């Protein structure tokens, strides 16, 4: 891809770690906390998002344990409500939204487009601090009694009736939102202005296209929820009357403003995952992604059409029938680009050369779960059917298939794919494949029964439930324990590999892309000289020789 000659290396045991790289550019606390290097900021995000993930997962574990029996015998109702609220707020604002963009996007976007850094390195560091400030608000809310509104903060419950720490949690989500805006803004500018010579738009890896689309949503949707949360908090603290039905206010208006962000936010969560899958599939099939431009434009299509469908969260909210129809129709339209992506990924495998290394196993897992998550969206988009399914466990299962089955699976795949690039060493392959298998099996066992119990009518956010739903909940909790083990494994073998793993060399997968042409881990300034791009993306028609 690049004209820069690089020493050809491969996964020989005799490979040596490069003498100088971004990780050993400084060991002091200050060299990390005040770093302007996008790669180090990515590592800061990796650590903090992982910590939030553990917290969110512990709350999920408590929820599943409580639901093992129909009675509310483990947790009080209010404790349960606080747990699912914390689970939702943490997982959405502090894990899923920053997961791939802030960690892997930060690390890879400059490397992939041939830049020394993102456009605004200080802003990048600032957005991590803003993110952590949001986390501090949320943790304070949790420690001083928790919050019980659900992550949706619906008024008037949040603005008048709840007597928990809504203000602090709202501040937390508001602040984390600004971190997301700043990151998106940085990526937009970086992708527009920092591309290396020869790196035209249609030579960009699909990962970049996906992140560009994601960043647009982050910049254009997030401010709306920021203002909405401000209005909710003004109503709660200063008793302004914005949504208050007592004054003739409209609680459904809050839902409109909330979902104007929160539906596109679903695409903030899944688009980067789709970008990752394109990269992994291309590498392990040794093929350019089938229909590159269709996959690229489908990302933009999803991002833009995704702004017109938020009303499908309001089908039974007393929203106008006509608006509901329009939102339902457009909801089906936005399903098409996702379908196009899936078909193109599948077609990429036709007559390819497929190998089953762990990132590819995660990608297979993604495809398996994403298809189910995607098609179940069709049930909910059909407005007449949604009346029955709305706010039941069917919805819970659907969005977990997309966000956890899709995004987290892709995130793990990405982490395994680029781990050797980030730390210069490989993890034990067997453990990685075991983790992928456990996550896949555990996930399906956890969430598939929820489709069934959802259609039977079990509402979400119930801490007790009729006895006839128990079978499904027992299965679900059993699955969650397997899923938990699957998620736990990488927490051991990945850190272990940083010290003890096999040295990977610059390009262990023999992949294409600028990031694989520099040493692993890369230099602080990424490239010794600005690369000049002369090839299309995924040019697998010739391979580097394997050096043994």
């Amino acid at each position, binding site marked *: 891809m690049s004209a820069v000659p690089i020493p050809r290396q491969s996964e020989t045991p005799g490979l040596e770690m490069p003498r100088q790289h*971004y990780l050993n*550019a*400084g060991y002091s606390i200050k*060299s990390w906390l005040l*770093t*302007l*290097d996008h790669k*180090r900021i990515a590592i800061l995000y990796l650590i903090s998002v992982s910590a939030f993930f553990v917290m969110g997962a512990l709350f999920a574990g408590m929820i599943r344990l409580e639901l093992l029996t129909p009675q509310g015998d483990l947790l009080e109702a209010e404790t349960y409500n606080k747990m699912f609220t914390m689970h939702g707020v943490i997982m959405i604002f502090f894990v899923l939204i920053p997961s791939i963009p802030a960690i892997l996007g930060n690390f890879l976007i400059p490397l992939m487009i041939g*830049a*020394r*850094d*993102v*456009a*605004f*390195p200080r*802003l990048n560091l600032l957005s991590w601090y803003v993110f952590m400030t949001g986390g501090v608000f949320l943790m304070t809310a949790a420690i001083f009694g928790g919050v019980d509104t659900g992550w949706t903060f619906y008024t008037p419950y949040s603005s008048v009736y709840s007597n928990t720490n809504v203000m602090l949690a709202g501040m937390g989500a508001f602040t984390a939102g600004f971190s997301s*805006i700043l990151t998106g*803004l*940085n990526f*937009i*500018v*970086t992708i*527009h*202005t*920092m591309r290396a010579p020869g790196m035209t738009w249609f030579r960009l890896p699909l990962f970049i296209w996906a992140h560009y689309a994601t960043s647009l949503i982050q*910049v*254009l*949707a*997030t*401010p*709306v*929820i*920021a*203002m*909405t949360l*401000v*209005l909710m908090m*003004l*109503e709660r603290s*200063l*008793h*302004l*009357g*914005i949504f208050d039905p*007592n*004054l*003739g*206010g*409209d609680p459904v*208006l809050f839902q*409109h*403003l909330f979902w*104007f962000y929160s539906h596109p936010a679903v695409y903030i969560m899944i688009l980067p995952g789709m970008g990752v899958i394109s990269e992994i599939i291309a590498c392990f099939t040794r093929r350019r992604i089938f229909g590159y431009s269709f996959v690229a434009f489908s990302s933009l299509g999803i991002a833009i059409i995704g702004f017109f469908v938020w009303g499908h969260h309001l089908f039974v909210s007393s929203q106008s029938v006509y608006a509901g129809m329009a939102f339902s129709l457009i909801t089906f339209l936005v399903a098409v680009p996702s379908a196009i992506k899936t078909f193109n990924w599948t077609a990429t495998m036709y007559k390819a050369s497929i190998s089953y290394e762990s990132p590819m196993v995660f990608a297979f897992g993604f495809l398996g779960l994403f298809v189910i998550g995607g098609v179940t969206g069709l049930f909910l988009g059909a407005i007449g059917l949604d009346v029955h399914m709305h706010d039941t466990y069917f919805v819970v299962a659907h969005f977990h298939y997309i966000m956890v089955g899709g995004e987290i699976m892709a995130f793990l795949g990405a982490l395994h794919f680029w781990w050797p690039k980030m730390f210069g060493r490989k993890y034990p392959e067997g453990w990685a494949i075991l983790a992928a298998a456990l996550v896949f099996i555990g996930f399906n066992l956890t969430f598939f029964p929820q489709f069934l119990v959802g259609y039977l009518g079990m509402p979400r956010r119930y801490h007790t439930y009729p006895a006839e739903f128990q079978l499904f909940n027992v299965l679900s909790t059993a699955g969650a324990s397997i899923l938990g083990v699957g998620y736990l494994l990488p927490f051991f073998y990945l850190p272990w590999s940083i010290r003890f793993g096999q040295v990977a060399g610059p390009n262990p997968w023999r992949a294409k892309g600028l990031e694989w042409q520099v040493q692993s881990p890369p*230099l*602080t*300034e990424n*490239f*010794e*000289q*600005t690369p000049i791009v002369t090839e299309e993306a995924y040019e697998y028609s010739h391979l580097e020789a394997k050096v043994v």
Partner: protein
Amino acid sequence: MSESHAHAVVAHHDPTVAHQFDDKAQQTEAVTLGMWAFLAQEVLFFGAVFTGYTVYRSYYPDSFIAGSHHLDIKLGGFNTAVLIASSLTMALAVHAAQNTKRIRLVFFLLATLFLGFVFLGVKVIEYGDKFHHHLIPGLGFLWAEPHGDPKHVQIFYSFYFAMTGMHALHMIIGAAILLPLIWMAIRGRFSAAYYAPIEMFGLYWHFVDIVWIFLFPLLYLLGLHAQ
């Protein structure tokens, strides 16, 4: 730590170009695009409350008109002129920086700051008036006029305070950024070769002006004819 490595390989030596950029043109392009993306974000930030206003105005037009009659059109109009004038001085400040006219730059920045404070001062008078007439929502709100449902008028005033308050907050932040810029201008830090901070701040200031250009008719003017 990273700086030393970076500079080792970066060819340019222009101190006004950050290490991650190849040249000044790239930096200017990036900064301008970044600012416009930020402003697009700001449009939607204010957009949420404008949407709410529009919806309630369509629900309760009479009460919104009745509520707007209590706003002082003279003060509002005066403030509009002040803010437009401050936009002009800001544009002239950018123009002065582009032509390396230090004294003019400092003068116009100070003028912009002064007009900003005039605007905020008038706003304080207006808020004080609302306080005296018990028109603060959630704080003993009283509405004794024959027109308008007191509850719906209270919604109008909630929007009045949310919108103008958020706007005033942007003005205050702007003033806070303006102070160090004025200091830097006095020190002669800006010239035709480097004036991006002035230009970017100008974009922000004009945006705040535009918000007011919409707030003025929405809050003060619509429904005046029904008086």
